[in-house]
């Protein structure tokens, strides 16, 4: 008995230690250091000790919390757009497409993610910019008098973000939608329901766990994305991650940068918590 339980715990440690080290060394320890730094003054001031000034600075300077507010709002918007596009796409793949087209469509959604984000964004740039493909054809056939700059504005940025995150909405929704019995949809239809009622009362409630986990993933991804807003957004569509980047790299103010990082983490957690409460879901159920 003794030996058996000992061996068991030994095996447990073999698997546990790498995971533990991974979490400790790469995630927990750096964060503890960043947290410590966020409560300290910049080193060049030579003033050791605890301070809240990094955080206070965030609220004192409108550009910071404006950027944060904008980033959060755009992230929510992008998440909603992705959800609105993702639901019918997942429905088509799971319930309408034949078995063969289903595999094909899934691959079609996956393929763009084999390419790095940078290349994908540049792909969009080639299409949309002033000397890009669309403008080339539009002016050639005289539909537009002169090329229009379609990049570097909020719409282009939102489109880019939607494009890069759609997979992470569609995949979890496909997972739950697969388990939806077709006869439930038919029964609702038979009992007199119209399409929108079937969506509202049958399909969406059933898919809620997938929708929530998709939304959380997409929201976090969009909120923390850097390349797409930077390359596709305009001069005045600053993303909060750029603020953090600026603090770390441009101003060499690691203390402020880490404070911003924690504010981002904290506030995104609050937004997700509020969203979960509003939709009446619990994180436990979603993770399950």
């Amino acid at each position, binding site marked *: 008995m003794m030996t058996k339980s000992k061996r068991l715990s030994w095996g447990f440690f073999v698997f546990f230690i790498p995971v533990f080290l991974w979490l400790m060394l790469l995630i927990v320890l750096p964060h503890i250091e960043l947290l410590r730094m966020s409560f300290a003054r910049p080193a060049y001031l030579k003033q050791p000790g605890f301070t809240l000034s990094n955080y206070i600075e965030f609220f004192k300077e409108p550009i910071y919390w404006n950027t944060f507010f904008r980033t959060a709002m755009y992230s929510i918007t992008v998440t909603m757009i992705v959800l609105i596009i993702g639901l019918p796409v997942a429905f088509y793949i799971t319930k309408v497409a034949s078995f063969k087209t289903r595999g094909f469509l899934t691959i079609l959604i996956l393929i763009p993610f084999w390419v790095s984000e940078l290349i994908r964004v540049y792909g969009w740039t080639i299409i949309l910019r002033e000397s890009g493909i669309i403008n080339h054809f539009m002016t050639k056939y005289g539909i537009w008098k002169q090329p229009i700059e379609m990049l570097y504005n909020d719409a282009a940025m939102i489109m880019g973000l939607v494009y890069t995150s759609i997979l992470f909405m569609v995949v979890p929704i496909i997972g739950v939608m697969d388990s939806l*019995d077709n006869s439930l949809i038919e*029964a609702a239809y038979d009992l007199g329901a119209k399409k929108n009622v079937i969506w509202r009362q049958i399909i969406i409630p059933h898919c809620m766990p997938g929708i929530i986990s998709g939304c959380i993933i997409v929201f976090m991804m969009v909120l923390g994305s850097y390349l797409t807003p930077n390359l596709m957004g305009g001069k005045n569509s600053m993303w909060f991650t750029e603020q953090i980047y600026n603090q770390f790299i441009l101003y060499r103010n690691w203390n402020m940068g880490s404070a911003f990082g924690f504010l981002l983490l904290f506030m995104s957690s609050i937004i997700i918590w509020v969203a979960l409460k509003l939709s009446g879901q619990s994180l436990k159920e979603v993770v399950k």
Partner: protein
Amino acid sequence: MEIALSVKNVVKKYGDFTAVNDVSFDVEDGKFFSILGPSGCGKTTLLRMIAGFFEPTAGSIEIRGKNMANVPPNKRPVNLVFQHLALFPMMDVKENIAFGLRRRGEKTPEVMKKVHNILERVGLPEYADKRIDQLSGGQKQRVAIARCLVLEPAVLLLDEPLGALDLKLREHMKVELKKLQAEIGTTFVYITHDQSEAMVMSDHVAVMNNGHFEQIDSPSNLYNNPASSFVAMFVGNNNKVTGVLAKDESGKFYVQDKNQLKYAISTIKDCREGDIVGMYTRPEAIIINPAEDKTFFNRTGVHVKAVLFDGGNSRLLVVTPTGQEVLVALPQNHQFDYIKKGDDIMIGWDPASSVCFKETGAKMYDDEI
């Protein structure tokens, strides 16, 4: 009587395959109509056309005299109880039942009154607030039926709703369902592959085979006067002997099997002298140790292969000297309790209790030849 449902020459094709082939029938208001057929004969396809999920390739469907062509399922005055019930797990019992009423835009107090009424009707008055996964199989069944009945459909369609239940509960629900239908008076169209379900519950039964109807009749007529060899084999048990139909000097018909044994027969359907026919005799029509003095009587000595004890439905499995297996019903008065496996006994039957049909080549599950 008003006609609740009228199906006229309905055909459904899947590509080259004809799943439903020229089916016509009428169901009167308030009747319990069953469609009985083996697996894959097209029952579900037919029912789904009536519900509106498929459009027929040809033919028309009328409900209360109104043609249903191009009317979607949510606009038809029929409701379907699905094979696996399809109750909504995201709603409780009362919301499941209220679903259809709400779609009609009825007000909540009225909806709830109707919901409680119908729950009372199906014997589940305390279950309004239960979740679906808290119900037993039989209770789910009743909720699924209540969910449709509360809408007062012109016709309630049921697709093998008892299929998923265990035997005991199925027996119970059969009687319940019949009682409920008689009480509420809604027209039921019920499909099943279980002949006892169809026989016990229905006013009329249609026997379906390979996409077409073989016979539409009352249960007792189906049993006593089958119109085709398929019906004879599918409804109840029957002993089948294959042979050639012939006539003796006195003009009486007999069937001669491959061993030249002759069986007299008096009920002949659609077949002529010289045809290869199947002769069908019910196990309970066969008499054990028949009196010697009967004339014009089929009589043969047989060997008892097994005693199949099944309570009130006990039978003997016997073989004729030529190797033909015959099932014989055992009367319930213990008169023949002495018969054991391996005994040799006499059996006989009145030629009038057999029926013969021209052999079509259509095979049943347990066909001999």
